[in-house]
């Protein structure tokens, strides 16, 4: 077991699947010799050769076309879209084609594609790079959407995503790439694609978050603990489907919940979670469902993003409000 960053854990998972299955392929802009603009695929071309890990021309729709066509000829593609903001260029490929093709064939053919893409704010990237675009994808039947919040889950989830015969959008958080380290086993292990995880147990209020906001929620939970408010923190890990069982079990214990996301509030993942809770668990709640989200502006220019992204203070304040309702 070694201490590994989030990004190294992803590289380790990719190394594992390339080694295990000769039909897996990694491709995208700069993923070959350069090892990706963030170095997520570093060393993999040297190890597995240019046939397995290769660069593409600069065109995201073409990259998705490659992934679909390669699936049709027996391959297990792992394309990278360099930044999530660039997925708009591949929207037909991901949403119009890939997510529907198993269905369109009446189940006869599989499209075991894992689209990896970095997202999320707080690293002062250029415009259109940091957007939280998960809302567009979680409303797509046929597509699974997962996003790890720590190095251990990053490795286990990327392996599960690649091994899944369903197409998976694997969202990697830019801010987490190098900001945290965890014990990560060297050997292969998987994290299930459709399960949330209780990352801190508590009895007074449930905080549901995903990706970088899990860390913010944990910080908020520490602050709340000082006033003897015991917060349970749930990391969704999968945004489609959402593991409501884990959330509901927690609510049955705490009877209060705050749903947190980094993305804008409008039509977000948090809205889906809140509506599920309202539909199935309202009688178990002692207070309204709290929500923490970014405001409904366009993703902000880099200098203002830290004022815009919800942080631990915002979560703590909302949790106190709901706790004291």
């Amino acid at each position, binding site marked *: 077991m070694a201490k590994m960053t989030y990004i190294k854990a992803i590289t380790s998972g990719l190394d594992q699947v390339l080694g295990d299955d000769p039909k897996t392929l990694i491709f995208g802009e700069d993923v070959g010799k350069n090892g990706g603009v963030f170095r997520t695929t570093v060393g993999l071309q040297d190890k597995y050769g240019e046939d397995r890990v290769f660069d593409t021309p600069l065109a995201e729709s073409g990259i998705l076309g490659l992934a679909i066509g390669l699936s049709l000829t027996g391959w297990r593609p792992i394309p990278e879209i360099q930044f999530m903001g660039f997925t708009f260029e591949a929207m037909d490929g991901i949403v119009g084609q890939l997510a529907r093709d198993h269905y369109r*064939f009446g189940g006869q053919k599989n499209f075991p594609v894992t689209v990896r893409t970095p997202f999320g704010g707080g690293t002062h990237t250029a415009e259109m790079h940091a957007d939280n675009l998960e809302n567009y994808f979680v409303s797509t039947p046929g597509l699974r959407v997962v996003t790890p919040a720590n190095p251990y889950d990053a490795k286990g989830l990327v392996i599960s995503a690649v091994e899944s015969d369903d197409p998976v959008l694997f969202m990697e958080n830019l801010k987490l790439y190098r900001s945290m380290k965890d014990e990560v086993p060297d050997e292969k292990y998987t994290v299930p694609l459709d399960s949330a995880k209780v990352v801190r147990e508590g009895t007074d209020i449930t905080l549901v978050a995903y990706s970088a906001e899990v860390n913010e929620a944990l910080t908020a939970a520490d602050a709340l603990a000082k006033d003897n408010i015991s917060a349970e923190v749930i990391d969704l890990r999968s945004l489609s*489907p959402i593991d409501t069982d884990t959330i509901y079990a927690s609510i049955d214990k705490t009877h209060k919940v705050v749903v947190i996301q980094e993305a804008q509030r409008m039509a977000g993942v948090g809205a889906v979670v809140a509506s599920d809770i309202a539909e199935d668990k309202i009688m178990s709640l002692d207070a309204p469902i709290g929500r923490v989200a970014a405001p409904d502006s366009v993703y902000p220019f880099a200098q203002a993003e830290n004022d815009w992204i919800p942080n631990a203070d915002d979560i703590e304040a909302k949790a106190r409000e709901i706790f004291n309702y």
Partner: protein
Amino acid sequence: MANGSKQIVDFAKIKATMADPYKHPVQVIDREGKVVDPDTLAKYSDDQLVDFMKKMVWERTLHEQTMNFSRQGRLGFYAPTAGEEASEMGSVTAFKKQDFLLPAYRDLPQMIQHGTTVAKGFLWSKGHVEGNQHENPNMMFPQIIIGAQYVETAGVALGIKKNGDEDRVAFVYTGDGGTSQGDWYEGVNFTSAYQAPAVFFVQNNGWAISVPRYQQTAAETLAQKAVAMGVPSVQVDGMDIVAVHEVSKAAREFAAAGNGPVVIETLTYRYGAHSSAGDDPSRYRTDEETKPWFDADPLIRMRKVLTDKGVWSQDQEDKLVEEYKDEFKSAMKDAEAAPAQKVSDFLKWTYNVPTPAVKKQIAEFEAKESK
């Protein structure tokens, strides 16, 4: 720069001559039915030529029968193919069963030739999933988002190359309007960048619904677009089945030998409406404009060549038409006998491993469906 001095580059000349290499459509039989390339024609036995004619009569009859079915309300979306028989039958017959076909919505006749049934074609039109389940697995379903079939072709061709499959290529169709899509360029360019085996057909039938070919681009030919991606290309008389077949065969051989992709522009015409779904061509084109194309009909010229050779008669053709009509009517009965589709099946096909919500919905619909 002073008036009259020589410019460092003559853009006017470049513009005037850039299409020159692409403006010579390959032709074997001209519109009058005269053989202009006897050497090429001599490569084909009478039986082969008769087979070409039979396939065109088959496709024309399929077109007419589907128009009848549409009027009777027995088909859904259907894209008429009359006028494009030489382009479609001449090309598809140059490929082998192991080749991978990526069709668009006007390419059902090629799909049937490549390995699905007429009944499945009708089921596709009627909106039934069985229409997408083909006997020959080397086939995509008809693409609706024009351009997507081009980028997917790049992946199929690269997959073939990576598999080391010998004597195998991808082949794909779009129309003149399709060449305006960004995906058209991305698909041809990716395939070329990887030197993967594919043949890209552009069936230039003059119209993208109501927008004429000349409004799609200032390029004089669509074939010349390929040069930007480093891909060889050619225009072919798309009303001449022998020319289309010969060019397609050469393209397939070139691509299968590891030389990268080829683009073929077939010059053809859409006699009918864009689709059976309410398009009225009289809104955007005149009889005066369409008449020369009807005169260039691929069946007329082939009929003349075969009649001159003494291997074809009107009587024979009339009988064939009746046979084909019976075939299509029986296919329609098969299509109409297909089991009703169930929403629970739609849900089952959405994921390989159903999500908890979908599982619940499957149970709900199965309960409803068993009532």
